[in-house]
């Protein structure tokens, strides 16, 4: 009965959530109108996910009140949230890979021992899926589905449980542009049917494309809520970061030099022992950034690891400045002058429980002046670290602070500083700005461009199309371990890259080549 009296699906008032040492949300007010698509925008660590987790019952607020459809509620658990009609699609899907779509949807809904009328359930699911354009095969196993399809299963799951409010946490992070378009369609369809949708993002163009309203969080506080059609990207960026942001980096005018990194017909297996790289070849010259774009999980990780000696090369060869480094161990690759910014900075790039200084010398501790015979001169380590902290503008109380305590942006700067310092002009970078906020992303990308302008050869492996378009001189698109084609940045169109990311081979270029060769 409350539903008809109140046009707000969600009203949060003065919600505060604290974690040890941080206030994730400080007296946040948020109102979301029924039937709207509402974007929750903010940098990493702004408190978006925390706020939504409070709503979904995963966390409980320390202070503040929540009303759902006008009724004050006390959400103690995800079960409470579901009963109130609130469902959340998390960044990491909660699906059982070895079960079918239908089985996943009904999992946990019925007490065990009862016979499930499978035909009836499936018919209901099919109707539901049809009415929201949720295109999935109910009998397919989860492991057979693409990420986009799995996301649709998650949404279907929530709808079947009667969700009236759907929260999506960075829903497009794992999608191709085409899949993102389909998702937009689904979201609008759901909104038009009266569902209320909140999606968390830090991408401005999504806010502009998807949403009716947008609320901006910064440092755990609610900055403002705007009608999307009455605001601009620039205004939102300013609200989010708290200052003006540069969107376009300077146009490049630089010379390409000799080939620094050369990869020929490289093959490698995934962790599961399946072919992950099926023979890729590329060259990176001094003074250029070559990007490998693609949806995560198409061989990018294996490519980076094979080049840096961390993964066994099955076949093919790799050279740095003409020196064969195929099948060399990581230390020999480091000695050959190749630096590596791994995609997983906490898991691989850093030792979180050791001081920044220990992290900064990871690539140089074997050499004088840092080392003196078998001993490390820790005074020199400190001096060296302080120099890098200054040069790369790493914000930290001291070089003795554990890396774990830095923000994501500053952690990435530690990795960058170390790798650029140790590099002899060859760099492999995997998703260098993933998970960073706008300010830090800008700093990281600028650093890479500076390095390129100083003559570094950079192989950028990135799932972020915006980053690829911003930085790369040439672009390869990888799909299931193969390059779908190569494009110059000037001629590359996002739509075309998107198609290639989804597995469309690039035919035009070969046509052009055959035409031009035919004409000669």
């Amino acid at each position: 009965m409350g539903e008809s009296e109140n046009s707000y699906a969600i009203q949060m008032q003065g919600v505060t959530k604290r974690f040890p040492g941080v206030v994730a949300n400080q007296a946040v007010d948020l109102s979301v109108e029924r039937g709207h698509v509402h974007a929750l925008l903010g940098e990493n660590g702004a408190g978006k996910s925390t706020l939504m987790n409070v709503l979904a019952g995963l966390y409980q607020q320390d202070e503040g009140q929540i009303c759902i459809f006008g009724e004050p509620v006390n959400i103690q658990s995800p079960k409470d949230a579901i009963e109130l009609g609130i469902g959340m699609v998390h960044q990491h899907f909660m699906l059982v890979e070895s079960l079918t779509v239908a089985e996943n949807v009904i999992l946990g809904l019925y007490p065990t021992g009862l016979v499930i009328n499978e035909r009836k359930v499936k018919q209901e699911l099919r109707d539901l899926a049809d009415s929201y354009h949720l295109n999935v095969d109910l009998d397919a196993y989860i492991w057979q589905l693409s990420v986009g399809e799995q996301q649709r299963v998650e949404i279907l799951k929530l709808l079947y449980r009667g969700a009236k409010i759907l929260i999506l946490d960075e829903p497009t992070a794992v999608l191709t542009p085409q899949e993102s378009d389909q998702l937009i369609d689904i979201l609008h369809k759901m909104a038009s049917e009266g569902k209320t949708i909140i999606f968390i993002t830090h991408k401005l163009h999504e806010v502009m494309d998807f949403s009716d309203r947008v609320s901006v969080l910064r440092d755990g506080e609610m900055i403002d809520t705007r009608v999307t059609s009455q605001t601009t990207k620039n205004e939102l960026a300013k609200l989010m970061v708290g200052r003006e942001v540069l969107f376009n980096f300077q146009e490049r005018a630089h010379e390409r030099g000799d080939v620094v990194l050369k990869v020929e017909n490289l093959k490698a297996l995934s962790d599961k022992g399946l072919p992950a790289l099926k023979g890729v070849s590329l060259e990176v010259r001094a003074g250029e950034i070559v990007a490998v774009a693609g949806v995560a999980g198409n061989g990018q990780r294996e490519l980076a690891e094979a080049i840096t000696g961390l993964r066994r090369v099955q076949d093919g060869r790799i050279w740095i400045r003409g020196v064969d480094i195929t099948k060399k161990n990581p230390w020999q690759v480091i000695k050959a002058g190749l630096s590596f910014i791994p995609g997983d900075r906490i898991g691989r790039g850093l030792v979180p429980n050791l001081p920044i200084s220990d992290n900064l010398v990871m690539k140089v501790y074997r050499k004088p002046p840092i080392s003196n015979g078998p001993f490390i001169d820790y005074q020199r380590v400190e001096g060296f670290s302080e120099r890098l902290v200054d040069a790369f503008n790493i914000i930290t109380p001291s070089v003795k602070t554990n890396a774990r305590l830095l923000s994501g942006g500053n952690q990435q700067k530690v990795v960058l500083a170390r790798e650029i310092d140790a590099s002899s002009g060859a760099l492999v970078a995997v998703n260098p700005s993933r998970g960073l906020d706008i300010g830090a992303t800008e700093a990281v990308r600028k650093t890479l461009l500076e390095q390129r302008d100083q003559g570094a050869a950079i192989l950028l492996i990135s799932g972020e199309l915006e980053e690829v378009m911003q930085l790369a001189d040439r672009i390869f698109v990888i799909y299931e371990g193969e390059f779908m084609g190569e494009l110059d940045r000037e001629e590359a169109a996002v739509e075309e890259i998107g198609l290639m990311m989804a597995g469309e081979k690039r035919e035009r270029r070969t046509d052009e080549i055959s035409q031009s060769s035919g004409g000669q």
Partner: protein
Amino acid sequence: MNIVLERRLEKARWAVVIVPIASFLLALVFGAVLLLAFGINPLQAYRVMVSGSLGDQYALTETLVKAIPLILTGLAVAIAFRMLFWNIGAEGQLAMGGIGASYVALFLSDSLPDPLTIPVMILMGMLAGALWALIPALLKAYLEVNEILTTLMMNYIAILLVEYLYLGPWRDPEGYGFPGSAPFPQEALLPRLWGRVHLGIIFAVLAAFIIWLIMNRSQWGYEIRLIGENPRAAKYAGIDAKRNMVLVMLLSGALSGLAGMAEVSGIARRLYQGLTVGYGFTAIIVAWMANLNPLGVVFVGAFMGALTVGGDQLQVAMGIPAAVSLVLQGAILFFVLGGWVFINYRIRILRSGKQKQAGELNE
């Protein structure tokens, strides 16, 4: 009301000092209750323990005698634990060290120049311990066999091998059937410095300093730290974790082997039953209580030595059953180790969301 443990962002400096002391006092209170239940005056019992372990020259030297093997095996365990190799086989490695040294003393000393006997015994003891540790290290590094199981089980092989030797082929023919090897010749005995305290005390302190130097000042120590904290990052930095695993275990086994050598050569002066009385297991506690810090191991090793000697005195002087003094030791360890939680965590008392809201409505 909810009570939760929250992780501290950084170790609290004051807590590092206060918590162990408070834990120790709590353990004494707990022990007092226990002793009262047995009808024993706790103050008197504690006085006996203190005077029995520190009160006079004899007590003090006996405490140091126990501290020697505890420090050496404690160091052995600590360096392995530093790189997340769970070596709980110090007892077996100590036993093998005892066998190696005994072999030299019993069968080679005649053909060795006298001044060389001790150095060769040290060498053989350390080598035997290292080789015993090498087996689980290789199994773990190259076949990924769980080292907890292999090191644990190899203890029993070594312990029973010692028993076989002193009861069987190495038994003293003139020993009137008592278990044990023949006494070592004079040149195979570690010189005693003070009471029964022998040269091994110097080895122990020196070893602690060297290990500290390795861990905190050398490239190798840096690599061990990296591997221990994040093996994937270590690999990324070009560090060969397998090779280091093997090297660290060789060192770990050698330290325990040295402890075994010192025991047979400095205390029993023969291969005997009392060689494997659990130093290698207590070493695990020593290592953790010292927070894997080599210099800390020296002090904790001495403390544990005192606890052992004091506990023995409790039996002798007050006729308290052996089990009671063991319970008392256990309580102290329990409280001190349990107290570490408060160095990394703090307690926070929460009012639940429900009560919070109710409270606000009342306002």
